[in-house]
């Protein structure tokens, strides 16, 4: 075979392989959906966020000790307990008793109570949710525009929907940020 032809075939072959590689380049697996689309499917009820709530609120610890399922209660606490105290795609948040000291000012996320043992944080926490007619949390987020933020002090008025050893879930009807 003509030497020139053989040599000239080299770049042609390289270009052909390159074209094939371009067509079939692998990509890493896609990350799981963040449920953001689901969050858009439901809206929080109008009037959920209030400027103020009347009455003397209970602490989280008091509520966990004394409230029963079905009770209408008002509690005061801090949105926190972990670095992201909200549930992505659901109208839920963790509220911590104000008596528990948050991390120092040097921490970027003092509301995660990093210096407190996890079981202490759990003992001083409850969960709030905005539930739909089926009792399940709405597919919306409480930390959207105009909503809550981590480390914010809040007063929540609602009904106790779940009460068990170490567990208290409040279906929030109104939330006032401080």
């Amino acid at each position, binding site marked *: 075979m003509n030497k020139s032809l053989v040599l000239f075939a080299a770049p042609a072959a390289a270009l052909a392989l390159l074209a094939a590689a371009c067509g079939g380049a692998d990509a890493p697996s896609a990350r799981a959906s963040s449920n953001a689309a689901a969050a858009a499917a439901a809206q929080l009820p109008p009037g959920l966020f209030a400027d103020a709530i009347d009455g003397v609120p209970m602490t989280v610890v008091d509520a966990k000790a004394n409230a029963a399922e079905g009770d209408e209660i008002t509690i005061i606490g801090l949105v926190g307990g972990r670095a992201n105290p909200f549930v992505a*795609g659901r109208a839920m948040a963790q509220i911590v008793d104000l008596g528990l000291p948050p991390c120092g000012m040097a921490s970027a996320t003092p509301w995660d109570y990093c210096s407190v043992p996890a079981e202490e944080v759990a003992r001083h926490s409850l969960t709030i949710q905005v539930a739909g007619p089926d009792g399940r949390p709405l597919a919306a987020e409480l930390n959207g525009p105009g909503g809550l933020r981590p480390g914010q002090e809040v007063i929540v008025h609602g009904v106790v929907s779940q009460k068990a050893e170490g567990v208290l879930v409040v279906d929030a009807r109104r939330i006032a940020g401080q």
Partner: protein
Amino acid sequence: MKLLPADYAVRNLGRSPARLAATVLGSALVVLLVLAAAAFVQGMLRSLSPPPGNRNVVLVRKGSEESFERSQVSAAAASQAMSAIRGVREANGVRFASPEVHYSAVLRESADSPRDLRAMIRGVSPAAFLVHPQVEITEGRAPRPGRNEMMAGALAPQKLGLPAERLAVGRALWLDGVEWTIVGRFDAPGTIMRSEIWTALTDLQTAARRDTVSCVVLTLAADAEFADVDAWAATRLDLELVALAESEYFAALQRFYRPVRGMVWATAALIALAGVLGGLNTLYAAFAARGRELGMLQCLGFRRTAILLSLVQESVVAASAGALLAAGLGWLLLDGAAVRFSMGVFELRIDSFALLAGLGSGLALGLVGAIPPAIHQLRRPIAAALKSN
């Protein structure tokens, strides 16, 4: 513009076989280096990627999100997670919920062997094969509880630094002075599990002196969402569990190892740059030796641009030949080679991206390598070029 014939360039390559060989080999080395770097990056990414369509959620103890080995989930919490969470996939009445222990342990080849073999051992129940469908038993069977049995992954020998036959079915390893029999081998292509050793969950709990598990792996039903599991964990604050989408966990691992991948590319780029500079040096000398020829071509009416294109063509042909040689060598020598790292073992992968990177760099080398010396040579006045030796 009148161009030089295409075969003029390729015939010129044969004028100095030694120089041609040096150019081809130099190009091959640079391309092989880029291929190796790309294969390393692709292999690592592949092993740290969840399988397509992965719908697994992992529940771990709060605070252990970055290291499952440190997680301690109580048996009660695991049991509640496996039974109470809505939206877990089911088949024939069996929920796709797998309690697992992830245990970094030191194994030995014999009871009194002084050599430590660091292994990642996963204690599993039969449900593990439901939530990890990519795991396939290739030889023998799964370990049964109460018998101190093990099943070794396809890359477990490389992880332990042992020959493959040492982990054959019927052989044994020692954990804490107790003999464990290898009863099976498995593979899980494209996953880090290939370098693991699997045992029965209860046997590993006994050996590790724990009654907790590291995590519970759940597979979501088609109509369920990750938020359902996350909401359950947010409700059961007493259990101190955190829900992680397995895909997010692997994405975090990929981010963690990004500096390593960056360093590999930077090293390859620096060495490739050295190769390019060396090639430039060679071409400067090669074109300088053809000064009279280039001057004569201009006298014959060929413009500098046409001559430049011909010189670039020569360089591209030689570099392409080197790139193809490197691609073949890379495929034979590098593809499938095992690399140990902290998470386990992964295989180098000469896939389409690696070929793209390698061949692209070869073609670029041919293009870029010829232009500066060619321009330098062609800027000389014709009279001076004709007088050169």
